[in-house]
């Protein structure tokens, strides 16, 4: 894992304007396979905008996004999903009246073979079987995959949303504050899940305002400020004070943190783990 790696997802000089608000002013971003990257920054720093650009929700006004070294321009979230890039939305984006299996396969339903399949008849047993496997893989215990999602606890619901992304992503998963509404136990479950997913070679990009959480789960931390990447830290070698300093700009300048300009050179994190 510690060998020199090609970045899985790389953005260079991404620009995004909303009217005269310049949300991203040449932002860079790098993520490698099997890595958990935390994306942090103050409110309005441009985190959500950057993730929206990288996941195909927004089209950038300038700059370049490369997936496995190939320049890409997603035409929409579906296009990104076809490339193996999934998003766990902050509101989870689940249909509460449907069961976990149906949510897992929403928009990608498995159909029966033959004529029935052509008529759109669902293969529910197969979907439920796969759902049980997918949840088991994530260490999620759902007593009943046929229960409507509203009847699940917040953490379980979060897990369904994560499982949905995990089941179909084979490259990158973006998670916009996936633990924001969770209790201590559920939060640690989700973070365990994040770790497990990354160990499968998928890159997880985590937006969070919770610094201890960031340091406990991330391999690297990228800091956005005013629409630019201002720093990139190895999680194992940094402190909350340092992160907060970079976010607010009070620690500007120390060159040793300026790895942003030289690209994804930081690899000690992986050895540390």
């Amino acid at each position: 894992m510690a060998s020199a790696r090609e970045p899985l997802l790389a953005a260079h000089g991404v620009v995004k304007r909303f009217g005269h608000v310049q949300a991203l002013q040449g932002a860079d971003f790098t993520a490698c396979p099997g890595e958990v990257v935390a994306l942090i920054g103050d409110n309005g720093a441009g985190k959500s905008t950057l993730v929206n650009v990288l996941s195909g929700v927004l089209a950038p006004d300038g700059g370049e996004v490369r997936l496995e070294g190939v320049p890409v321009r997603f035409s929409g979230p579906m296009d990104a999903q076809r490339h193996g890039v999934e998003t766990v939305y902050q509101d989870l984006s689940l249909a509460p009246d449907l069961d976990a299996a149906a949510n897992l396969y929403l928009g990608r339903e498995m159909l029966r073979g033959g004529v029935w399949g052509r008529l759109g008849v669902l293969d529910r047993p197969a979907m439920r079987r796969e759902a049980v496997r997918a949840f088991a893989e994530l260490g999620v215990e759902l007593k009943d995959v046929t229960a409507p999602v509203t009847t699940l606890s917040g953490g379980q619901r979060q897990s369904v949303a994560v499982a949905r992304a995990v089941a179909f992503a084979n490259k990158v998963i973006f998670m916009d504050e996936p633990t924001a509404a969770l209790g201590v136990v559920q939060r640690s479950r989700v973070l365990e899940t994040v770790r497990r997913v990354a160990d499968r070679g998928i890159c997880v990009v985590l937006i969070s305002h919770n610094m201890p959480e960031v340091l406990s789960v991330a391999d690297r931390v990228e800091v956005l400020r005013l629409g630019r990447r201002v720093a990139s830290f190895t999680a194992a070698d940094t402190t909350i004070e340092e992160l907060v300093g970079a976010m607010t700009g009070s620690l500007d300048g120390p060159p040793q943190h300026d790895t942003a300009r030289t690209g994804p050179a930081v690899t000690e994190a992986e050895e540390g783990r």
Partner: protein
Amino acid sequence: MSADSQELRESSKLPEAPLAGADGRQRAAEVLRRAAGVSEVWTFVILVALVAFFTIAAPGKFFTTYDLTQIAVNAAIYLVLGVGMTFVIITAGIDLSIGSVLVLSAVAAGEYNIHHGGPEAGWGTVAVCVLIALAVGTGWGALQGAVVATGKVPPLIVTLGGLGAALGIAELATGGQDPAGAAAAHLQNSLGFGKLLGIPWLVILAAVVTAAFGAVLGGTRFGSHTLAIGSNPTAVRRAGIPVGRHLIKVYGLMGLLAGLGAVMWLSSYGTTSIAGHSTDNLKVITAVVLGGTSLFGGRGSVLGTVIGVFIPAVLTTGLIVIGVQQYWQDVAVGVVLVAAVYIDQMRRKTRERA
């Protein structure tokens, strides 16, 4: 399926036996949950209680073939309309226009019939009339669906406008009078009064439509997307499902079934009954809601609607049989309806708190 989830499947060879055990327990849990939690069970209990009551109150009178057939024939058209309404309400929508769309479809088919042979029209004309009724209904419904899909006007208003406009066009075309000779004798004698093994064709048609669309709602991708749209349209949109196009199909289906209702009406009564459908919408919506379909969208079933259609039908017949003024039926249905929605709300709240 991505290569990775393929891998996931391969790498997680779970022991099969415990999985099968869990499967069995799951199925048992599911059955229990269905039995206890699903509102159509309660509605069904009410229906059974009503039937039992009338059977005991009027022994030998209520439970006769005549009444059963009559109940079924009366319910057949409402059932067909109710199936469409179930889909619409599940998307968190509503369609107030169904009575007018039925009338408009009947008038369009009837006018064609009048000019192509009248009551003595041949089978060819009958076939064209049926197609006209279905096409007019589907077109009108799809048009309303397209407006709903823009998200700019709520379905209540779109279909309220549609109710007025469709009826107005029907009245313009006929001068407000039911034209004579709207239905061919062939149509009436076959679909209208015909029977197969003692069961009226109208009832068989309604049963087939109900079973088919019950299966569509419960077992197909179309049904699943319908439920999902009523549950969380944003999530559905993000999942890449074209929500607008789906809504057009759902309202189009409602229109198609209103057109079919027009064919059934013409064959059964032989006239367009322009003034006779102003409360169809309320009756059908009542039946759907009684059947446990949530007005807030996301939940519902065709089976529930079947039960919901039969409750008023059983009440009407039953009250006549035991000699009570049948107007009590309206009072009873009104009370039960409000109670049903109240219970739905309570269940929703307790579930969300859990």
